[in-house]
């Protein structure tokens, strides 16, 4: 079983007033375990909708979505919540850290909902923060950190429950290019460790870090190309 994500004929329609909007018009995609994939496309092309469905935040109108060998398109809200908790790590464009909590608490939060005992939570969170290079910022609140540092906290948070895939939605969108490159190097490193990473971006330079680019337009995949060499610096 080497496929991480298998989606087949995914259709997603929204009702906007009287008109039905077709955000995804039959999308099929297979992402293997350990792949590093970028999803590109102009705004309104359906890439965010796909990310929501891949992230189990939303259900497709029709079609099948197998995550890690299990069908998730028909799960209930609470089952989706558990799936998000165990199998998916999110990294958002605007970080989405809780302002009142320290980095350590933010990183430990997914483990609270996973029912991990407190001591183990703190150990794992400390390890994850150290891995992203924030071992000395564990007790800082988000507003005491730079944008790049905040995104690194968010990445650490996405890792702690050992998810099947890491989904990053425009992770460098709010960062300057240097911080953006640093963040991408972290994703490269995670991928090297064997993690499946899917990221949405509209910047080709960011997509060059990956080995596969899937391009969307008007709700369908128009291009799916793989490349041998990525921009990842290798042993960083």
């Amino acid at each position: 079983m080497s496929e991480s994500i298998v989606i087949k004929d995914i259709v997603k329609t929204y009702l906007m007033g009287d008109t039905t909007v077709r955000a995804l018009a039959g999308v099929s995609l297979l992402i293997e375990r350990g792949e590093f994939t970028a999803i590109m496309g102009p705004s309104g092309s359906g890439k965010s909708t796909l990310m929501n469905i891949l992230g189990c935040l939303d259900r497709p109108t029709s079609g099948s979505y197998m995550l890690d060998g299990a069908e998730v398109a028909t799960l209930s809200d609470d089952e989706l919540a558990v799936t998000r908790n165990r199998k998916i790590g999110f990294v958002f464009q605007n970080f989405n850290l809780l302002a009142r909590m320290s980095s350590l608490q933010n990183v430990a939060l997914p483990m609270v909902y996973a029912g991990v005992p407190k001591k183990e939570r703190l150990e794992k969170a400390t390890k994850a923060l150290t891995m992203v290079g924030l071992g000395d910022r564990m007790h800082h609140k988000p507003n005491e950190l730079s944008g790049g540092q905040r995104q690194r906290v968010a990445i650490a948070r996405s890792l702690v429950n050992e998810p099947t895939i890491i989904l990053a939605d425009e992770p460098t969108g709010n960062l300057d290019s240097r911080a953006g490159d640093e963040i991408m190097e972290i994703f490269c490193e995670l991928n090297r460790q064997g993690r499946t990473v899917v990221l949405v971006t509209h910047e080709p330079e960011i997509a060059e870090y990956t080995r596969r680019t899937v391009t969307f337009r008007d709700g369908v995949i128009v291009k799916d190309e793989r490349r041998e060499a990525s921009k990842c610096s290798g042993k960083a």
Partner: protein
Amino acid sequence: MFWESVVIALDGLRANKMRSILTMLGIIIGVGAVIAMVSIGMGVRDKVQKSIAGLGSNLLIVMPGATAPSGVRVAAGSTISLTYKDAQAIAREISGVTMVAPMVQRQYQAVYGGKNWITSMQGTTPDFLEVRNFTLSDGAFITQRDLDTRDRVAILGSTVVENLFGEMNPIGQTIRINKSTFRVVGVLAPKGQSAGGQDQDDLIIVPLTTAQERMLGVTNVQSISVQAESPEVINQVQDDISTLLRVRHRLPPGVPDDFSVRNLTAIMATAEETTGTITLLLGNTAAISLLVGGIGIMNIMLVSVTERTREIGVRKALGATFANILLQFLIEAIVIGVTGGLIGIALGLGASYTISSVFGWATVVSVGTIFLAFGFSVLIGLFFGLYPARKAALLDPIDALRYE
């Protein structure tokens, strides 16, 4: 998970200290008011109960003259219908009667040395002491021999002692009541004020026969106090007295009674019920303020849910289930209720203590009231927290994450 939720909730409250305190204030005042009001009401009821006990238990009072259904006494010409012999007959012939004390009464001036005091002179029999729940603090009470010999002996109430003798021991002294001399043989223990605010210690007791023949020049009595064995037989005794007196007074059927039998316990039970109603009313008024406090919780929780929509979205994206979010906000509401309730209990206890010490009102704080008010405040937190918490838990994670 539960304790995690409590910790998260406490953090949320701490983040908005002022707002949390103000919201809590509604519950604090509500719970405090319930406890203070109920303790005042119960204090009043306690006082009434004590007065009932003070009057004597299972007491019937036979008065001359008829009673119309409205309670107005009519047939004024028949007010001398009761006699000492009637009282003796009641004691002799009716079963279930333990004590009988006939009585006459008039205001007189009592004089000792240079001091005088206008008081109520009551002529009665030895049973009076027990029927009316008096006790002697010194000396002896009227005896049957005093009655037989129409002896001029007197027992003084503590108010009379104070006004005529001051600190001096009155036993063995001679006082004058309306020019007749009486020897003081006993002093009554003070009873304090009655429920109606009358001084129950402002009286002089003399033998019934002495009062009738030497002072008033009458043969009738003004009332007969009858004590029944137990509350169960009191109604039977009341009926038997009526029957007996109708026979003794030779009243043909159809002619109204020339006396009336009043059941004091029943009257006092009514008074007690009234104070109970007042307590309930006070408690309810206070409970309404508790309800308003609860609405305050709901209000602030709704604001809090709206404000933290994004936080809810993040938590949901990270795997929080419906129950996780519900619990988080519910616990926040309950924590406000519980904390407010605890402070309110302290406030209510303080208020009722202050009222009783400053205003001299008796207040009774019952453990039951405290638990009730506390339980109520927890329930209010739960009830008014449920709607906002449910609203939060039902938020769609995508919408919540997009919320600005």
